[in-house]
């Protein structure tokens, strides 16, 4: 199982999904209309490391985080 967490202002409970890469996650989340705006502007981290493409394999126990636009300070 891969755990998917939605950070900051995204009001969505974590998901536990049987997926093996980020492309599969994209397909799942693109079916969720509440997520469509967030998918355009969120960054993605796997086990707390930011990734820059969907070509990332996932294994059991991995954690994916979605990070919406930031504004510290």
């Amino acid at each position: 199982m891969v755990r998917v967490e939605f950070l900051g202002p995204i009001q969505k409970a974590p998901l536990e999904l049987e997926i093996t890469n980020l492309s599969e996650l994209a397909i799942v989340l693109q079916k969720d209309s509440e997520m469509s705006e967030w998918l355009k502007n969120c960054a993605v981290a796997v086990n707390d490391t930011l990734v820059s493409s969907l070509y990332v394999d996932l294994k059991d126990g991995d954690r994916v985080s979605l990070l919406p636009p930031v504004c510290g300070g």
Partner: protein
Amino acid sequence: MLYLYNGALEVTAILKEWYEQEAGSNYGAYIPFVGTVRNEDGIEGLSFDIYEPILESWFKEWQERAKARGAVIKMAHSRGDVMLHESSYIAAVFSPKRRVALEFIDEFVEDFKASAPIWKYDLKGGKRIYALERSTAIKGSGILGEKS
């Protein structure tokens, strides 16, 4: 050298603590940047969420960049609510000479704004409203929205 606090920062105490920490380190320049909540758009204050694991790894990279230039970087930020005219953010660089410090504080603060995993909310009429228009998508954002 990353300090997170609940609520507003005690600016004077933090600036003093950092100055004293480096008092014997032989740095010639100390430049803090202090960010304070401004009264605009009728807000009562701001509120912050922080994702600490990625903030820590982002900050660690900046510590290494500072070290490579003979400098030291420190940062403090608030979690939760910070009201008008209170401060929520301090970053500071120490370096032997002024040019590195002047350039480093600018680079650090700009990347902080663009990359640090912190989310800002306006406090307005008792509500906590995500400040989307003032926020910046982290570099590489949007990959999950691509059609595969």
